[in-house]
Structure formats: C-alpha cells, structure tokens
C-alpha cells in the first residue's frame, strides 16, 4: 500500500496532477514543531491532520517555539500568557496531549543560534520518539517570517541528527537513545507555486474540519473582532445583499461564524482540488528520503518478519 502511495507521490510531483491521498503512517507519536501558537490553523496549517492523527490513536505533542508576545493587542507580557493559554485550549480540540513552549522571543528568531534551538528539538525528539514530525518546510520560499524560517531550518536538521549518537552524546547519559524521525509533513505559508510544492493531500472528515475550525476560533486574543463582522454586514447591506446564515446573530456570533467558515472553506477548497470533500496538503518526506538510490530497492525487497 505505502509503496503505491509513494509511487503516486513521485508521479504527482512530476506531473503537477491531483495529489495522491496520503494515509496516516503507522505510529504512536507525532511532534508538531511550529513557531507560533496558532500556526496549526490558518489556511496553511495542518490542524485537520493533527486531529486525524489523534483519531488514529497518535499521541500528539505541540512544540510552540516562540512566546508569541507580538501577536495580539494586549501588550507583550499579556499576549505571551494569553496566547499560550489559548494554544493549550485550541490544541485540545485537535487531541493534542501537551503544549511544550520553548519561549524564544517572538519575531526575533533570526538572531538565535541555529544549533541552540536544534539542540532543544533533538532532545525533545529523543524523549518523545515521534514517527511523524509536522513543521514548516525548510526549503519553502518567500516566507517573510523570521520565526518560521529559523524553526524550519532547526527542525529540518533535528529530525535526522537526533538519530546520530555522536550528536549531543550528553543526552544519552539521561537514558535517551538516538531516534531518527521517519515521516515528515511539511507545510508553508504560501500555498502553491515554487514557494511550496505539496506532493500529498490528507483527506479529512467533517468532524476533523470542525475541530480545526474550533481550534482556529479558540485563539480569541487574535481572532476576536466583532467589528470586522459588523463592517462586513454593513458593506453587504449597502449593496442590498445578505448572508442568511448570519441573520439574527450578534456581531460576536457572526465573527465566530465567519472565522470558522474560513477554515471550512479552505479545507473544502483543498478537498475539491484533490477529489475529496475536505483535505489539507503538505510536502511529505518518507522514511527513505535520505537514500534516493536505495528507496526502490528497500521498498521492493524488504519483507515482513
């Protein structure tokens, strides 16, 4: 099965066709490594995939790398605390077990030594031994956010370096063992084009999309904006238009409805592009990504014990 999916992924990459549907790989643990509290949502986030993994009995940990102090209007200290609290609530919707906050300064990650952040991620990978890491694409282009770029780079190195015993041998003294992450799901802010080139789609069900929408809305510190809903309805009124689903709702309720629609709409859009009702897309790298000359041989010759 996985052999056929991999073949389809490579063909799809070459042809730019509808993306193959990627099954959740067999495993127990996933580590989501992202810069910010709400990066698992948005139009490029993989919140639905996280929900799907937890439905498949994965234990999911979310590593929030920065302190999110710049995101929101409550001042740096309050933003940090509120955004962390909301991240914990939001990721619970998705089935995440724990949020691990590294608390690097938000929007200042360009000046952080890469190897320092990488060392933290290597330790967490060795501790949790994930079969799947979800992160930013280290080869994505045009992401203007310094936090995304630095996290992508550090995660891209940590996923394989954690498997080398001579990297941070001090970790082994605590009983941890080397662990190379086999499956990588990468995403990127800009959806398509050369900036990010997804090669797989993950099909989502209604419940998973609803949970992604709920997680998105749970970041109230940055999402709560009834004035935006009010302005939209005024604009529609002026043109003699209305959205029946918003009739009778307060501005707060309309705000929530519109924000959740955003997540449902983008999931439906990705689904439509890939022949299913709902989907998310990612750049998937498999367990043999480092040996392009051996992949076919291993997949063709490996036997079940």
């Amino acid at each position: 099965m996985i052999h056929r999916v991999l073949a389809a992924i490579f063909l799809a990459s070459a042809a730019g066709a509808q993306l193959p549907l990627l099954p959740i790989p067999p495993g127990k643990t996933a580590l989501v490594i992202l810069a910010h509290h709400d990066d698992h949502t948005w139009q490029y986030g993989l919140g639905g995939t996280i929900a799907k993994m937890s439905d498949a009995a994965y234990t999911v940990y979310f590593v929030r790398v920065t302190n999110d102090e710049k995101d929101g209007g409550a001042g740096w200290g309050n933003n940090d605390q509120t955004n962390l609290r909301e991240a914990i609530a939001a990721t619970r919707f998705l089935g995440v077990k724990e949020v691990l906050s590294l608390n690097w300064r938000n929007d200042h990650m360009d000046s952080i030594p890469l190897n320092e952040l990488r060392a933290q991620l290597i330790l967490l990978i060795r501790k949790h031994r994930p079969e799947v890491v979800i992160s930013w694409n280290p080869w994505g282009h045009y992401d203007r956010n310094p936090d995304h770029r630095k996290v992508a780079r550090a995660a891209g190195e940590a996923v394989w370096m954690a498997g080398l015993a001579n990297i941070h041998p001090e970790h082994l003294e605590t009983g941890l063992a080397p662990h190379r992450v086999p499956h990588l799901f990468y995403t990127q802010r800009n959806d398509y084009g050369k900036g990010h080139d997804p090669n797989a789609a993950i099909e989502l069900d209604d419940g998973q999309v609803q949970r992604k929408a709920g997680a998105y809305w749970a970041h109230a510190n940055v999402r709560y904006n009834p004035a935006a809903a009010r302005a939209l309805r005024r604009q529609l009124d002026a043109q003699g238009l209305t959205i029946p689903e918003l009739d009778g709702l307060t501005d707060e309720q309309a705000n929530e409805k519109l924000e959740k629609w955003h997540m449902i709409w983008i999931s439906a859009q990705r689904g439509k592009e890939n022949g299913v009702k709902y989907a998310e897309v990612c750049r998937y790298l498999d367990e043999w990504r480092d040996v392009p000359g051996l992949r076919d041989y291993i997949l063709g010759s490996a036997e079940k014990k």
Partner: protein
Amino acid sequence: MKLRLLLCMAMSLLAQDQKVLVITADASDYVLAAGGTIAGMAASGATVWLVRVTNDDKDSWDLPPEETARRTREESERAARILGIGKVVSLGYRAGELGGVSPTELRDRLMFYVRSFKPGVMFIPNPYAEYVEVLDRYYTGQAAEEARRAASLANFQPPFASVGLETHLTPELYYYAQPFDPRRREAESTATFAPQPKALDIAPMLAKKIQAAQALKTVNHALAMRIQQRLQETGRRLPLLDRVDDDAVGKLVEINVRKLAEIGAQGTGYSAAEEFHYAGVEYQIPAKYR
C-alpha cells in the same frame, strides 16, 4: 559526428592541463553526486585536489567522534585516490556544526585553496538544491560559491597576495547534489549568466565510482545499520542486511551508486550519468551574444 569527435579530442587535450578543485562538506557527498565525472577528468589527465570541510566525526554507528574522525579521514583519502584525486585537504570542522561557523571564515579558507591551486574547474555542493537534509552541504556550497568569486578580486584578503596568492577566476563551475530536489532539472533563467542543468555520461567510470564509494566503510556501515534498525523497528527485514558485514554493505553501496547513476541518466540517452548545474564560460556571455 565529426564535429563531436573533434570536440571530444579538444576537450581531452585541454584536460591534460586541467586543474580541478573539488569542495565537499563530507566524505561521501561528492563521491555519490559527482565521483564518476571527477574520475573521468582525472583519467583524462587532469590534476584534481579535494577540500573536505568537515571531519565527519558524527557519521558512524557505534564509534566515538574522535575514532570516527580518524577512520573517515583515512577512508576519505582512500576513496579520493581511487577516483584519481592527487591531494586531499581536510579543514577539520566538526560535522553538523557548520551552522555555527562564520561563513566568511569558511569562505576565506576555501578561497586560499582557489588562489593557491588556481583551478580551471571547480565542483561545489549546490546550495540551491532543495531537500538536502545535511545542511553542512548547504553552508559549504554557499561558502564555496562565494570563495570562487572572492578569489578573483584583489580587495578580498589582501594578505594572501603578500604570500604569493594572486587573484584567480575559475572559468568552469559544477554545482553538484544527490537527486533529492524534484525540481533539479528545471532550467534557470537564460537571460543572463546562470548555471544550467547538465548531465554527463559516467558509464566508463561507474566501476571506479562504486569502488570509491565502497571505500567509505565507516559511513556506509552506519547507513546499513540505520536501515536495518528502521526495518527492525517496523517489523521488516531486508535479506541483504540480515548480517551487516563488509560484503553486505559493499553490495548495498553498489546498488545505491548504480541506481543514482540510473536516476541521473533518465531521459538523457546515457546508461549512467551524473546531474549538475553547470556554469561554464559560455554562461558568462549574455545569451544574445553567445
């Protein structure tokens, strides 16, 4: 046909005086990505030097870093000799740590060898190749690309000139990478100077390339053990690796090199090839004047 024959003869004559500088981040990358082409140039009479930037001290299965570094150095020199490389320089940076090294320091150390050797051809890791997980290759490629340029400009490192290291512009540049990047064959802009995808036939040198790759015993053993462990963890086995001994690892390496050559040859008409992005002298002339 005659023109092609003449061209080959001319290239062969040129190669006799050719000096080739190969820069690699680690012991195996240049062998797997460019070893056949380099061996071909050496066999045609070129003098080849290799600068290996890191000491590969992490790349073993169960050896401490110091012993890993010692063995990989010996094995790297053996592999280089098989390819016909005359001199190997090891800069000795710790593997996996280039992200913490000053890019200018690395550039200047590489520039030293560009100015002292004065190559006609350079092979460098392609820093623009995507999905290359080993970032040492990216940092090395970036520093090497800068070193080639800086070596030609007198205002970079004036003290070099005081010890006889005059400026030098290397006319031909090959960017190499193993085939991780799905877009590696897309042409770059041709409006101005830009390296372009290029595949070279390595069929006559394939056996030598396999032999050189097999000489890297420590890193190959680690690779075989990683594959075996991964399969074991997921309830699978690869009959070839039931016993990870020299024969099994050697066979695994041969399969890898042959398949890489096959991937490189896809769509080229060759039976075995390597893929590069190539910036030759012609690319330094604007397209409309070529």
